[in-house]
């Protein structure tokens, strides 16, 4: 009886916190704390010296929620602005959210963001969709510590047990166009991943994760990171070895052939990231070696057996930042990246493929604060691409084994803060040696009034044709595809701990770059500009955050009615495009049971999704709807009595819904199974330097 009583007493505060979350009592008002309470709250504060006044905050110590929604970010404009005034629709994901959710990889992290989904391309490669639009080929820019991860040959970034989420400090996402700042890969969005740097690490961390699916292991990962700051010198290192599998389920193609993905869908990653900086000068090098074992090919099961496809990347950057005077800041950098994506020895009728591309990129920017109200950023960029066919197969359209391109760009951004409104305007001009010129302006009106904020945004964006787009262009040549995006957002801070926002968007893409097969006897594959595509929709988000827990709920809806003429994306319902559910809901909650134990849960609801289920006797694709499903995940994190040592236990897809990846275009690939229910254990140990 005593034991029962003790258990009840222990659980009482836990139950209370759960009830508070469940019944959404976000209206509890805490008494205000102010920054001067950090000092002793007494009359002594009036004896502070005048020099100490400089850092006084106007609004005191923020609550956890206020810290988040008023964070300064720079992804959406070259000058840092707080999230609520940035001229884009922004999502900010923190280290705490990633750690507490037990996310296995970036797919787990990003699928909780409104508008982001994943689909399969070919050869087991999973890529990103944004607001219903397939975006794998250079339409969403993915940055890791400022390095463009998008491959120059195809524009792709592939996901799946690839980067160590435990190294991430924060992710800033533009859920809309970013070309006016970032150029031709940022047509539909920007994902800016920032890893922990020297000051954040100040020690060594080792993390290992093991995941077990129904029939086979899900992942066996090991990561290490270390960093130290010594006065003005900062050094950091992070490394990751990942051995994962896409799925343990059966893949079946349209022709009835199948294979077990257990043992035939490996995702192997070797990654290292080193950074050194001294005052304004910094040097970074990243090695990112990723390979997949696949048997799905372009959709038909590969007869000969498993095949390895590799994506090898080397990045380096030398950067210098200097305040020239109180108002003017200079930033200059040189980047080098060498990539060999989709490398394989060939299979069945597909030839061996080994094409490398090198990009050397230079950027100079000046940031001028004319006054507190007026800021200008202007700069120039250029890059040179060198692509080489290592197989010497005459891969390029000129019949040769190499091709060179150059691109020159200039950009400008102005920001004016007035009493009723903030005005941000900017433009970017690119001139490419192959596809010509692109000019993209943008305008944003934003303002934050006490608890309320609004944004009205217009951006023109473009997708640069990639090396493959140019190489396989039909006789008409290839031009950039252009997108106009209109967005509006309203946000309201209900109280210190909870916040609500709603945004609407309209995306219209013209001159869409589409891959097609010629109808003549040559049966040749081409890229061409034809048709228009796009979506419109709304996204809602509610966030509650307190010291003892958080609750995030978001809903995203898109429609393609009257927005898309591209057949390969279409479905029998005009509002829906292939692969991506019109309705999506995400929930992310966490409770700190006590200072050592946290319990977290995430859930993702997918509405009905269209997919190509087969080919009829006339050779036409059969399109069907997949039932809605719910992914439910749990994770417990425990700080053990051993200082610095933490244990995490969790289950992903607790309901065993087995979410699959659908191909977002009619390209002959059946849905690719994802992992089954996966139990994970994560151990991490941190030793801090004194």
């Amino acid at each position, binding site marked *: 009886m005593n034991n029962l009583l003790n258990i009840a007493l222990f659980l009482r505060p836990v139950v209370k916190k759960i009830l508070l979350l469940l019944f959404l009592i976000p209206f509890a008002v805490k008494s205000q704390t102010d*920054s001067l309470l950090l000092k002793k709250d007494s009359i002594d504060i*009036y004896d502070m010296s*005048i020099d100490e006044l400089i850092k*006084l*905050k*106007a609004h*005191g110590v923020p609550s956890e929620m206020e810290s988040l929604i008023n964070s300064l*970010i720079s992804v959406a404009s070259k000058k840092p602005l707080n999230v609520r005034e940035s001229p884009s629709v922004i999502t900010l994901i923190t280290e705490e959210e990633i750690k507490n959710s037990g996310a296995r990889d970036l797919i787990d992290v990003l699928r909780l963001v409104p508008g982001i989904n994943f689909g399969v391309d070919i050869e087991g490669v999973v890529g990103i969709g944004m607001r219903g639009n397939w975006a794998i080929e250079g339409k969403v820019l993915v940055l890791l510590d400022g390095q463009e991860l998008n491959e120059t040959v195809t524009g792709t970034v592939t996901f799946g047990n690839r980067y160590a989420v435990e190294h991430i400090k924060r992710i800033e996402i533009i859920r809309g166009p970013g070309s006016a700042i970032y150029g031709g890969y940022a047509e539909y969005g920007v994902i800016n991943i920032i890893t922990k740097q020297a000051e954040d690490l100040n020690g060594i961390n080792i993390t290992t994760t093991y995941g077990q699916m129904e029939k086979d292991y899900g992942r066996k990962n090991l990561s290490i990171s270390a960093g130290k700051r010594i006065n003005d010198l900062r050094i950091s290192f992070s490394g990751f070895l990942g051995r994962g599998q896409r799925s343990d389920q059966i893949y079946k193609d349209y022709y009835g052939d199948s294979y077990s993905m257990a043992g035939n869908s490996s995702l192997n990653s070797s990654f290292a990231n080193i950074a050194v900086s001294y005052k304004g000068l910094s040097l970074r090098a990243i090695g990112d070696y990723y390979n997949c074992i696949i048997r799905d090919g372009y959709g038909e099961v590969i007869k000969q057996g498993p095949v390895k496809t590799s994506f090898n990347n080397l990045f380096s950057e030398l950067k210098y930042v200097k305040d020239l005077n109180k108002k003017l800041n200079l930033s200059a950098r040189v980047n080098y990246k060498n990539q060999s994506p989709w490398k394989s020895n060939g299979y069945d009728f597909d030839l061996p493929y080994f094409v490398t591309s090198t990009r050397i990129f230079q950027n100079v920017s000046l940031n001028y604060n004319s006054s507190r109200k007026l800021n200008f950023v202007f700069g120039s960029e250029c890059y040179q691409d060198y692509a080489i066919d290592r197989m010497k197969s005459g891969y390029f359209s000129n019949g040769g084994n190499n091709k060179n391109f150059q691109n020159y760009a200039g950009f400008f951004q102005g920001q004016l803060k007035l009493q009723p409104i903030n005005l941000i305007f900017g433009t970017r001009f690119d001139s490419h040696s192959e596809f010509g010129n692109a000019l993209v302006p943008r305008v944003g009106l934003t303002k934050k009034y006490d608890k309320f904020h609004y944004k009205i945004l217009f951006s023109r964006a473009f997708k640069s044709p990639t090396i493959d787009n140019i190489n396989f262009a039909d006789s008409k040549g290839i031009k950039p595809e252009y997108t106009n995006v209109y967005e509006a957002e309203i946000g309201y801070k209900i109280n210190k701990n909870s916040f609500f926002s709603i945004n609407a968007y309209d995306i219209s893409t013209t001159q869409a770059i589409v891959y097609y097969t010629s109808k003549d006897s040559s049966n040749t594959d081409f890229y061409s500009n034809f048709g228009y595509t796009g979506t419109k929709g709304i996204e809602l988000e509610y966030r509650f955050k307190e010291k003892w827990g958080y609750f995030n709920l978001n809903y995203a809806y898109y429609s393609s009615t009257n927005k898309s003429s591209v057949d390969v994306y279409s479905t029998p319902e005009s509002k829906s495009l292939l692969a991506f559910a019109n309705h999506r809901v995400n929930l992310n909650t966490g409770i700190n049971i006590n200072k050592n134990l946290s319990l977290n849960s995430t859930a993702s609801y997918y509405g009905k999704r269209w997919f190509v289920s087969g080919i009829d006797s006339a050779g036409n694709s059969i399109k069907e709807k997949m039932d809605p499903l719910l992914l439910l995940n749990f994770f417990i994190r425990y700080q053990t009595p051993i200082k610095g040592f933490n244990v995490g236990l969790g289950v992903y897809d607790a309901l065993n819904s087995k979410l699959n990846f659908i191909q977002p275009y009619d390209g002959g690939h059946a849905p690719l199974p994802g992992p089954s229910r996966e139990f994970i254990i994560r151990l991490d140990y941190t030793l801090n330097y004194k």
Partner: protein
Amino acid sequence: MNMSTGYAQEKDYKAYTLYVYNFMKYIEWPEIESKGDFIIATIGNSPIDNEFKTLAKSKKLKGRNIVFKKYNSVEEIDNCHLIFIPSKEYATLKNINSIIKQKSILLVSENEGGAYKGASISFAVNDEDELTFDINRKELENHKLKISSTLVNLGNVVK
């Protein structure tokens, strides 16, 4: 810069009061105004009133008592040394300046931009939520107030 640190919503009026106290310390009033109690006033109701009351109760200015006075309307303005114009009363700023004419009264505006509209000093908040202030030297001269260089270096001179 700690990019991830956001800020609270309610203003920290202790911080504003601390600045005002330093304005009092680092600005010189004419000899004739430098004797007797130092009077700080506000117009209408403001959350800063309680902070000024606390300041008045607990501190002195160069040996002088500090007295807090509240005017319910601009018509009530009489003798004082400093008038703090809260956000709600921002629209009355020009009117107040014309009423006090060239009296040695320091006008401090809570709202950014007040220094362009007749206040000698107005507060502003930068992107990092740090409190700062703008100085209108012409207005200070107009009201026969001398500002020390220490204070000028801390703020931003707009005129």
